[in-house]
């Protein structure tokens, strides 16, 4: 048996084999469709460290003619001891037969030593019709594990678990779409327990995956901090020549500058999102049509965005001193006093985007017209003078990060967010709040961030990720 474990993910057609492989290999390019026969060739997905493979997942086609295969096997077997050889003989004999193409494809890696991961759909009722498949797999004599994956809404997992335990060493429930990262690791650990030699490489893989997860969060924080800084410092400038220096032209110029500034900010936010998606290896999120509805329906400069992620004036005044955790100011200051809570808004209770753009309000402080000199006048828009904008940008970025980092690579549906009336900043520690506020203030006043402040902002954003995660997963 090879010291590098291989796991063949097998089962009936269209029971979520590919979605399990997609989630475990973090590959959202694997075709996942409710269509039998999507997978026609077995495909290996190795997990490697510095080019050294630790384990390999093999996606396989589903069984098409299990009863005929079993009948052939039974007809050619004399005793239990020759079963594995008989299966190998079947594959050798039928390797060129199109009728048994799928069976040969799925049995080949198993006969080469792969562990068996048998996937069933726990959302449909158990039926004994799958027993022919399970019998064939048992004949191979390879270590095996059954996964009860749930594709639909119904739950028949208990029945499946009871039935599968008759055929498999281990039966686990694993929803490839909604499973948490810890559940991924737990499943890999179970893989390692199928065979003593497999335990160590799987443990190494788990360690590396955990480190990667940790590092990704840090890199995401750096990307986000950089984007927030860029957006807060953005300035659009244009010089007006003497011929156009009439009042009407100046107003027109101001409008153009503001529009350019808004467009740039939206593009920068989109660039950040793409970078975060690439970081978490969600490269086909748009192709899948699984757009993040809330983020797309609500513009960066909409009043809804401000309400969801903005903070109150009193918070802006006091956060720079680390207030917020001190009694009295706390939560009321954060929640803006709106009867409509941020969480309810995020949860989608309010559908349409706000028509009032609070970005217009930003114009009053951000637009500057220079003096008319030698027939030339310079107009500039930005950096934005309202610290509120920083919280809106940050809140939207953190929200997007949360959705992406919790999204499985088999997932094609939107993540549902829990409703809550509290502001996510309530979960952020005082030091991080202070650092955020100071960084925003420094951008506003000095027009730049020094190196130390930039590092503190990055750390504060990382802490914000943790706070947002806590706010989402443990709503009060």
């Amino acid at each position: 048996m090879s010291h590098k474990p291989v796991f063949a993910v097998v089962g009936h057609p269209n029971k979520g084999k590919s979605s399990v492989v997609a989630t475990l290999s973090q590959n959202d390019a694997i075709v996942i469709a409710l269509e039998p026969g999507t997978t026609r060739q077995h495909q290996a997905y190795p997990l490697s460290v510095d080019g050294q493979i630790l384990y390999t997942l093999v996606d396989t086609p589903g069984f098409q003619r299990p009863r005929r295969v079993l009948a052939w096997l039974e007809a050619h077997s004399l005793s239990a001891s020759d079963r594995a050889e008989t299966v190998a003989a079947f594959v050798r004999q039928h390797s060129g037969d199109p009728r048994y193409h799928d069976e040969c494809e799925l049995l080949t890696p198993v006969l080469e030593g792969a562990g068996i991961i048998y996937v069933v759909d726990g959302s449909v009722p158990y039926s004994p019709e799958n027993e022919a498949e399970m019998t064939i797999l048992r004949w191979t004599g390879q270590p095996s594990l059954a996964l009860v994956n749930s594709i639909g809404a119904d739950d028949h997992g208990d029945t499946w678990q009871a039935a599968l335990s008759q055929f498999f060493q281990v039966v686990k429930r694993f929803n490839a779409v909604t499973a948490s990262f810890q559940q991924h690791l737990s499943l890999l650990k179970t893989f390692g327990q199928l065979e003593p030699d497999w335990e160590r490489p799987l443990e190494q893989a788990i360690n590396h995956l955990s480190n990667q997860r940790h590092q990704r969060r840090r890199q995401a924080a750096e990307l986000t901090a950089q984007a927030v800084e860029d957006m807060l410092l953005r300035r659009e400038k244009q010089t007006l020549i003497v011929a156009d220096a009439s009042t009407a032209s100046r107003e027109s110029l101001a409008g153009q500058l503001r529009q350019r500034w808004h467009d740039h900010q939206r593009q920068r936010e989109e660039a950040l999102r793409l970078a975060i998606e690439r970081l978490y290896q969600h490269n086909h999120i748009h192709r899948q049509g699984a757009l993040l509805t809330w983020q797309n329906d609500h513009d960066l400069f909409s009043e809804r965005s401000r309400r969801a992620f903005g903070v109150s004036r009193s918070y802006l005044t006091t956060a720079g001193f680390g207030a917020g955790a001190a009694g009295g100011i706390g939560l009321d200051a954060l929640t803006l006093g709106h009867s409509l809570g941020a969480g309810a808004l995020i949860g989608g209770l309010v559908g349409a985007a706000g028509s009032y753009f609070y970005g217009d309000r930003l114009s009053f402080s951000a637009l500057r017209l220079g003096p008319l000199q030698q027939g030339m006048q310079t107009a500039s828009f930005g950096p934005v003078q309202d610290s509120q904008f920083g919280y809106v940008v940050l809140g939207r970025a953190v929200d997007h990060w949360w959705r992406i980092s919790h999204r499985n690579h088999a997932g094609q549906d939107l993540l549902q967010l829990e409703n809550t009336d509290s502001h996510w900043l309530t979960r952020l520690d005082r030091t991080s709040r202070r650092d955020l506020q100071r960084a925003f203030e420094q951008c506003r006043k000095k027009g730049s961030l020094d190196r130390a402040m930039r590092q503190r902002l990055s750390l504060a954003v990382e802490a914000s990720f943790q706070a947002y995660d806590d706010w989402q997963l443990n709503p009060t």
Partner: protein
Amino acid sequence: MVRHRSRVCSQLCMKFNSSISRAFGLAAWPRIGLHFRYELRFGKTMAKPPMTLLLDFDDQVRLDRDQPAAFLHRRDRRFALDCDSNHERPTVPRWLEYLDRVNRPAPGASQVRDQDPRLGLWRRVTSGFALAGAVLGILAMPGLLFYDGSQQINVTVILAFILLQLLMALATGLQSIAGWQPWRPVLHGVLERIRPSPAGPAQSVLRELHPQLMARAAHVGGLMFGLTGLLTLLVLVVVQDLAFGWSTTLDTGPVAFHRLIDAIATPWQNLWPAAVPSLDLVAQSRFFRLEDAGTSGAAAHWGAWWRFVAMSWLCYVILPRMLFLTLTQGHLRLRIRRLLANHPGLAALRYRMATPALETGNQEAADQEKPNLETHLNVHPVPDSATVIKWAGATDSLALTRASSALALCAGGTASLRADGQTLEHIRQHLNDVVHVVLILVRAWEPPTGELVDFLEDARETWPTDTQIALVPLASLPATVPDGHHLAQWLRFVERHPDLRLMVSRPEPGPTRAMPVSLSGYHAKASARP
């Protein structure tokens, strides 16, 4: 054996990681995290000046910002592994050299430039200060030594000027060390006008070095001022008869003034005694005593002050500037090393080099397209039939076999292949007497497999050729209709297996409404998907 190999691999990996850790000063790799200590080592040879190295590194980090993290990890881990195999330390200069080498447009093209163009502005600023200092030195010294014979050159004024120069040098030095830049807005305005940086001045690491660069330029200017001033003094001493004296309105006697002069001349007292004015000379060269002591013999000695003036200029203008220039240069190098050592990009680079690159197999199958889920077929009402096959465990939850004469048989699933054959034969006999329509009830959620294809092919061979076969997908819950996407997979199945007398029927919920069978048009195109 396998375990042993695995252990050896693991030990090799740990050995490599520890060598990376040593190279980057990491105490122990497993404890690497956000706060590990790091000691930067540049290696034995440094091809690039430290400033260029820092700027190159900063530029590279900014270039890398647009690259995916996985790519950067692979690239830098590869570099670290190559270094390890060559028994070299993965240092920053080597890393930059490695990237230069692999990114070089043409092999052999030299990347080493004599002068870093990014520092061109600062070279011009320094040259400008040097030129201005030299010119001012040439102009200032004749001004100080202006002598038309009517009045002596006042040594007190010269000493005050030297003191001013000393204070200016001291202020520039302290300002550089403290990082105080009152001139910053002016400088940044000028820099933006001259050469707007695409990254913006706030983004450039060079900005962090502005205090030291500015101080260096100022000290170079001051040094050139001192040197040309001294040269001018020497020229004037040769070509003119200079008469020095001293004067003050303070109640100070020659003795006190001589003590001051003596203290000022301390540094060169032993080296050049002739450059230390005597008490007599001091007493003779005081202005208001001139008339009293105004003899031509005394006047002949007034020129002897020049040695003192020259040495004072050398010791308190030139040497302090040289000292501060050296200190600033050292401070600049120290700041460069610190900036590089504390560069955020270096922490990320260290991590990428020391951490094994993890590939989860996400590169595979990246170009696959989604399968075509379109279908042009339509579902039909369930035809009236008294012959029903329950395929693979499907149950007649909608009571389609309500007629008392109906024949309902099971096939597929747990039934044996022989039993399937018997079912086909049984139905063939049954079809002789009734209309040739057979319903096959299937579980809508179970995808059609090859076994059903085989069964249908066998049925075609066994049954009369005009037999209509209707696949009736049933939902998992009784008295409900199947979901659209479940029906669609059965339509696509029929589409993939062209058979004019095979169709998909959808039962209506509640009392079943069977329709008379139409013998044509089962494959009629539908304008809308079901």
